[in-house]
């Protein structure tokens, strides 16, 4: 396969002897250099062959990841693509994060540098392979010149370049300097998948070791000389502002350096973390709640219910929906589903380190999921040219969507806090878990109403769905895809179908949460369909398959998961299986959950079988890990989690004691199989999440006779 190299457009900026210093990777890179950015030019002998590949004299190959690593595996996955096309040895591969540079490192699906929508592999698959193939071609060209042999006679295996006739052999490093002077090829030939050596294998992850011995550095771990620690006191009602501030007691605490009002609250600056926390506690602040959300969750839900039946925006309509429901011989079925606010609660709360250099430029160290937006935010708030802002993306302790925000509000807060400090010392802004849980930007509340019609011969021939909720994308009069995705594109053959959407507004800002719209649409579709199948006397698997005749990939994962579960034998007494299948982010996942009722009346999920089709499986080990994690993350949320606004709108939850996380004893055994495929690879970070909720709810209904209408399941079913 020949493809014109998309790395070409960026190559010239990296040629002509420009070099980067890249030490080993998983440490906060550039920290030492950051102290003197003006001195950045004189650096080591490592050579940049293109925007993504750096070859050092010692043969190490450093791959620059334009995507943030927070556990979903891009460092390993992207490096695998480069190493494959370079014919490198896995042991010589290093990974570092790429700087913020929209021109070089944009997500090709979004046009901005952003990790999200499970697009890392899909948008990088060709680009990173081309980067590897380009580097290989340039290294071979340099070797051919040096050895005075035709490049076509050279071979590469495990990072060794060989010329069989002359017996010459070398690693990459010896030719890095010469290769960097060559003009990159216009076109490179990529391998056929049958020649893959690394792609499709279980590569050990590049970041595992440092994540077992405490060496991995996250933003919270960075310590710069003379750095201040800052915390912000936020209001308990989202959207309230400071009306009066008395900082006397806070300033009296040893170690507290300063207190400043900032747009989001009151910042306390201190010499150490404990002083910052104590100082924050000692603040005396009165809040103005006139702009805050003052409705409770229940009031919000009631107001959403009241919109059902009013004129909304039609997302899909096919067939004749009114006819399907006016047929006297049909049976109809109705259900309302209510979904709560959800916090993401990544293990590492939000944080950022900002420092100003002598030349006025600013370095930012953060788990930046949206470097393009973060750079812009710093530039606007601190009033400096975006070209003078450098973002150093750090390893991040999870995200689940939390670190990628429109307009970068967190980075704006960090910048405001930094600016208010006078910017003479580096500042680390650190959110506590309470800030995180009460910080808004939740998966919004949604209310869905569904009506189904089953005709006299048992065919489901009517599906009428309404969704009411906040538009994550800020839409008013148009459909927000994130409200309807996964339902409006229902894969089941149902003749008459309609989906209507209502966008609402709310004082608590919304955000995507791992799998976005599919967090609720998959639940409504798969639970309601399961009920319709049951009412029409059909088997949940066979019934689905019959309706999926136009969708071979959904059918294949469903068949596979059914096989997996049935080969495990009949479930033990008291245990029941529930199934769900759902496509999200172009990947297909089917799950079967084995569930029983525990002595205290709560569900116990014993096992979950997962079949996934995500195209070419670049690293099966990472895919399996993402399915396991997706199941666990989704399960904790559907069983236990909700953020509730109480009377007057205050946020009730504050930490892990009342915003539960799944714990080890609640984790089911997860068995994953991957469908073999030659399709282009698609995402795995999110698609494991949507099916777990409906699979468990379907099992629960079959087990107890009680349909699940409201999440979290444990509260709605047991109260």
């Amino acid at each position, binding site marked *: 396969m020949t493809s014109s190299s998309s790395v070409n457009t960026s190559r010239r900026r990296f040629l002509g002897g420009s070099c980067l210093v890249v030490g080993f990777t998983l440490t906060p890179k550039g920290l030492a250099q950051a102290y003197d950015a003006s001195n950045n030019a004189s650096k080591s002998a490592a050579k940049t062959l293109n925007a993504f590949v750096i070859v050092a004299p010692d043969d190490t190959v450093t791959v620059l990841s334009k995507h943030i690593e927070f556990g979903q595996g891009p460092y390993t996955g992207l490096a695998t693509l480069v190493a494959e096309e370079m014919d490198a040895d896995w042991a010589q591969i290093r990974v570092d994060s790429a700087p913020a540079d929209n021109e070089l490192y944009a997500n090709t699906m979004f046009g901005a540098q952003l990790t999200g929508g499970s697009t890392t592999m899909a948008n990088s698959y060709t680009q990173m392979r081309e980067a590897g193939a380009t580097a290989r071609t340039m290294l071979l060209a340099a070797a051919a010149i040096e050895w005075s042999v035709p490049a076509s006679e050279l071979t590469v295996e495990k990072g060794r370049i060989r010329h069989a006739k002359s017996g010459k052999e070398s690693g990459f490093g010896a030719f890095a300097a010469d290769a960097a002077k060559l003009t990159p090829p216009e076109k490179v030939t990529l391998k056929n998948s049958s020649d893959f050596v690394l792609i499709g294998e279980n590569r050990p992850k590049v970041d*595992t070791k440092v*994540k077992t011995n405490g060496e991995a550095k996250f933003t919270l771990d960075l310590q710069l000389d003379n750095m201040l620690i800052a915390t912000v006191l936020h209001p308990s009602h989202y959207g309230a502002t400071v009306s009066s501030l008395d900082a006397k007691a806070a300033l009296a605490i040893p170690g507290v350096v300063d207190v400043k009002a900032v747009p989001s609250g009151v910042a306390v600056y201190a010499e150490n973390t404990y002083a910052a926390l104590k100082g924050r506690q000692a603040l005396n602040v009165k809040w103005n709640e006139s702009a805050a959300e003052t409705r409770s969750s229940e009031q919000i839900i009631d107001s959403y219910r009241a919109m059902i039946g009013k004129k909304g925006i039609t997302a899909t309509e096919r067939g004749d929906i009114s006819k399907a429901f006016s047929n006297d011989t049909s049976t109809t079925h109705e259900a309302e589903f209510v979904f709560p606010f959800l916090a993401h609660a990544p293990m590492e709360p939000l944080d950022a380190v900002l420092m100003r250099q002598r030349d006025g430029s600013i370095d930012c160290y953060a788990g930046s999921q949206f470097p393009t937006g973060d750079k812009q935010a710093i530039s606007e708030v601190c009033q400096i040219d975006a070209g003078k802002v450098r973002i150093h993306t750090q390893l991040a302790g*999870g995200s689940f969507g939390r670190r990628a925000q429109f307009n970068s509000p967190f980075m704006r807060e960090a910048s405001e806090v930094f600016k208010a400090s006078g910017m003479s010392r580096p500042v680390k802004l650190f959110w506590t878990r309470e800030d995180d849980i009460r910080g808004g930007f939740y998966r919004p509340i949604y209310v869905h109403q569904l009506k189904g019609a089953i005709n006299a011969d048992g065919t489901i021939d009517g599906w009428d769905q309404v969704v009411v909720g906040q538009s994550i994308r800020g839409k008013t009069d148009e459909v927000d895809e994130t409200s309807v995705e996964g339902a409006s594109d229902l894969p089941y053959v149902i003749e008459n179908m309609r989906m209507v959407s209502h966008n609402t507004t709310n004082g608590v800002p919304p955000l995507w949460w791992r799998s976005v719209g599919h967090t609720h649409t998959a639940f409504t579709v798969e639970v309601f369909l399961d009920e319709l199948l049951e009412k029409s006397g059909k088997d949940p698997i066979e019934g689905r398959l019959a309706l999926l005749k136009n969708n071979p990939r959904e059918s294949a994962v469903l068949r596979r998961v059914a096989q997996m579960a049935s080969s495990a034998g009949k479930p033990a007494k008291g245990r029941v299986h529930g199934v769900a299948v759902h496509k999200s982010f172009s990947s297909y996942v089917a799950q079967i959950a084995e569930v029983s009722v525990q002595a205290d009346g709560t569900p116990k999920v014993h096992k979950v079988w997962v079949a996934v089709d995500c195209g070419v499986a670049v690293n099966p080990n990472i895919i399996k890990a993402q399915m396991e994690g997706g199941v*666990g993350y989704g399960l904790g949320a559907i069983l236990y989690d909700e953020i509730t606004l109480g009377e007057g709108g205050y946020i009730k939850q504050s930490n892990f004691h009342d915003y539960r996380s799944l714990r080890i004893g609640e984790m089911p055994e997860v068995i994953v199989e991957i469908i073999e495929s030659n399709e282009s690879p698609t995402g795995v970070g999110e698609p494991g999440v949507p099916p777990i909720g409906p699979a468990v709810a379907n099992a629960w209904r079959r087990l107890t006779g009680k349909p699940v209408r409201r999440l979290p399941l444990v509260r709605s079913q047991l109260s």
Partner: protein
Amino acid sequence: MIKFQLNGKQTEFNGDPSTPLLWVIRDEKKLTGTKYGCGIAQCGACTVHLNGSTLRSCVTPISEVSGKEVTTIEGLLSSKVSAEATAVQRAWVAIDVPQCGYCQSGQVMSAVALLKANSNPTDQDIDNAMAGNICRCATYQRIRQGIHDAAGTLTASASSNVKGETA
């Protein structure tokens, strides 16, 4: 002034005696392998060993540590539990337990303490011992597997030692 042992070395702290051990370790002693996750003894990210038992350093004032022995993830391999630590870390690497990795120092500290006390834990023992360690990435299945694998290598090396002695 508060004196205590940190990873085998005598050390001291002169600040506010109510300062949680977590912030002394991280801010003063610059050992950042021990993490903050909740600050209220709910998540286990801040787990260290105090005189060999697990302790949530986020809720332990430094004054309570006076004269005692603290081991953090950084000191694990040179501590009395180095055999367990080696086995756990190797098992973690072999099956790629971590995802984001942020909780994993705490997971490793708890797993090592479990294996020190119980060299062949059942699933139930693991559930009990690890219940206080949240992993938001839900790597629990591999944590469980990693503990079983580590127990296996510890038992194997223990039995080969016994054979070596009797031979």
